[in-house]
């Protein structure tokens, strides 16, 4: 039914995908990995497409089945290892007669977008009808007019979006983007080395942790937490001066030798190896670490507040089957479906009512703060505001300079 790229060679590919998704890994290598992946994706896709055509011709009684081409990140949808299918997509296809060709095509926001720019500018088909990109890249797409506006009433389940995500600065009222899953950034630590735990950003940068702290190379997560610590709201219109205060603060931690690295996903490995005791990290990773280590690691939002970033579903302006795509988005905003996906991917679920649905099949997981933050937690989560092009360059340059890269 679906041309899922994850259907073949799953374990190996997962490993490659993890490598490929690792921000710390140089892009050149990521390209190599993604190239080998995409070749396989093509091969797997050929088989899948054939099957889809065969099935469609049996079931749809002659009417041409619509097809939605969806680009998403790796391991970001429920997946059945035995059948090699995405159960929720199978259900969607049989209920609506819409085939979805699902591609785990996104390994990096910039690297996914860059080759599509010319086509987006000249409004030529980019090969996808639905893309899933992170807030800041979503903001850029919307700013540049690369996204289609949702049809009024086309996605009735949009009403299920949790209230805190309804009005981000880059898309007030959510007319062009809807969150797929959310990733919280907070603090993680080794409970053996730091038994008292870390309650705030101040604790994180305590001289006691000198040389044992790593922060994320994702600027918005690291700087968002630091700005919050300095009493500056990263979701509001902070000024350049305020941002630079945050940069100076981080720079001091680096110069003092407290922060030993500015890295991507590999911070989890450094925690495991014992080289690093405390991090600014992502909820999903820490959920894994905590689960596999018998409580050796823990994660919390600092008391100053945490950062949440979402990956958003968007319809490119070049799509021609918007009604079908909106049906698909609407389907995933059904709480029962959202619960199924969330139970699989363990990221923050943006759909109201999914928690109650999950409780029906996994009561324990449904209480997980990693998937369903409580009201109190949610009130502490901020979305980093959209930046102008000039700000993006200036801020990123300053951040990279602290990381030693500029």
């Amino acid at each position, binding site marked *: 039914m679906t041309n899922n790229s994850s259907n073949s060679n799953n374990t190996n590919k997962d490993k490659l995908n993890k*490598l490929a998704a690792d921000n*710390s*890994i*140089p*892009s*050149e*290598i990521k390209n190599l990995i993604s190239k080998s992946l995409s070749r396989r994706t093509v091969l797997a896709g050929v088989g899948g497409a054939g099957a889809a055509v065969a099935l469609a011709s049996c079931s749809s009684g002659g009417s041409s089945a619509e097809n939605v081409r969806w680009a998403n990140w790796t391991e970001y949808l429920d997946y059945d290892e035995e059948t090699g299918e995405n159960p929720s997509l199978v259900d969607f296809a049989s209920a609506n007669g819409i085939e979805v060709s699902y591609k785990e095509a996104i390994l*990096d926001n*910039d*690297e996914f977008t*860059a080759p599509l*720019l010319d086509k987006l500018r000249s409004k030529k088909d980019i090969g996808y009808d639905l893309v899933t990109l992170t807030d800041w890249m979503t903001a*850029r797409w919307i700013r*540049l007019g690369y996204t289609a506006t949702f049809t009024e009433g086309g996605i009735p389940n949009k009403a299920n979006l949790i209230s805190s995500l309804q009005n981000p600065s880059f898309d007030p009222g959510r007319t062009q983007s809807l969150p797929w899953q959310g990733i919280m950034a907070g603090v993680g630590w080794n409970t053996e080395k730091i038994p008292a735990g870390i309650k705030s950003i101040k604790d994180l940068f305590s001289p006691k942790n000198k*040389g044992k702290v790593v922060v994320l*190379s994702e*600027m918005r997560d690291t700087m968002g937490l630091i700005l919050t610590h300095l009493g500056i709201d990263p979701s509001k219109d902070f000024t350049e001066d305020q941002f630079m205060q945050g940069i100076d603060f981080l720079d001091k931690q*680096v110069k003092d030798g407290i*922060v*030993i*690295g*500015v890295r991507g996903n*590999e911070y989890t*490995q*450094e925690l495991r*190896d*014992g*080289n690093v005791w405390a991090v600014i990290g992502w909820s999903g990773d820490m959920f894994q670490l905590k689960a596999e280590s018998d409580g050796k690691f823990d994660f919390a939002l600092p008391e100053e507040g945490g950062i949440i970033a979402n990956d958003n579903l968007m319809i490119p302006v070049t799509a021609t089957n918007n009604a079908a795509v909106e049906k698909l988005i609407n389907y995933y905003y059904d709480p029962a479906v959202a619960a199924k996906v969330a139970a699989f991917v363990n990221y923050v679920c943006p759909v109201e009512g999914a928690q109650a649905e999950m409780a029906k099949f996994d009561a324990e997981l449904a209480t997980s703060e990693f998937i369903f933050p409580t009201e109190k937690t949610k009130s502490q989560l901020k979305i980093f505001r959209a930046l102008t*092009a*000039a700000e*993006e*360059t200036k801020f*990123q*340059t300053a951040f*990279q300079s*602290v*990381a*030693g*890269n*500029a």
Partner: protein
Amino acid sequence: MAVISRPSGKVFALKDNKSAFPYLLLAPGLLWLFMFFILPIANLAQMSTKTSSGETGEFVQSYRFANFFDSFMDASGQFARSFLYATLATLIALAIAYPLAYAIAFKSGKLKNVLLVLVIAPFFVSFLLRTIAWKQILGEEGAVTAILRTLHIISPQTTLTSSAFAVVTGLAYNFLPFMTLPIYASLERIDPRTLEASGDLYANGFTTFRKVTLPLSMPGVVAGTLLTFIPAAGDYINANILGNPNTKMLGNVIEARFFKIVDYPTAAALSFTLMAAILILITFYIRKAGTEELV
């Protein structure tokens, strides 16, 4: 020389032959060079003088040659570090590779092939994984740190990971085979009779090495140092994975400019400056060391 001894008619025939055949033989190579070297370089060159149009990822050609100077000044620290680390790594690799190659060439007996395979063996593992492995080798729970701490060579507070030490050792390790193999090849070619002759002339072992073996192996040393230094100077994986913010190299700056800051002109200008700097250094080095016997 050989040409002269041939029947002269043939030589003339060759000289007169203006067929395109040799060029056809060259064509695949030239095409390859054109597609994957000349074109990208030209593309990079025209990018290096552009300026931002105001929108992320869009640039306009404004022939701003100041890009070269500005980017160099901004990244001078990383520039210096690239050359310092690459030089250190080359020296370390040389110090390890020469005795190793010597032992393989002269003292290994039946084990020669096994040892050669062992030198190349790390290449069967991806560069990235080999580098990540060093993180564990030098890590808190690794043997190196434990031994050095027990011997009080480093203090209990000192960590080896995320340091300049880790970056340089990583570079030396990753490029070691490039140093070992050329040296081995030139040592292996040495005629044993020259060594015997040296002994006959009452030179002791050390003098023989200094006066005969070392000079004869110099082509290998020159080739090895070039093959190590050039990639090491442009490397950014070791600094990224094994270093900290204060040990970043120029490769990291270029990578961040390309992919994080989306400032292609600066990245392109820096790439050119790095290329030019390496070329100048290498030219100087080869003038000094001589290349007659390199090929």
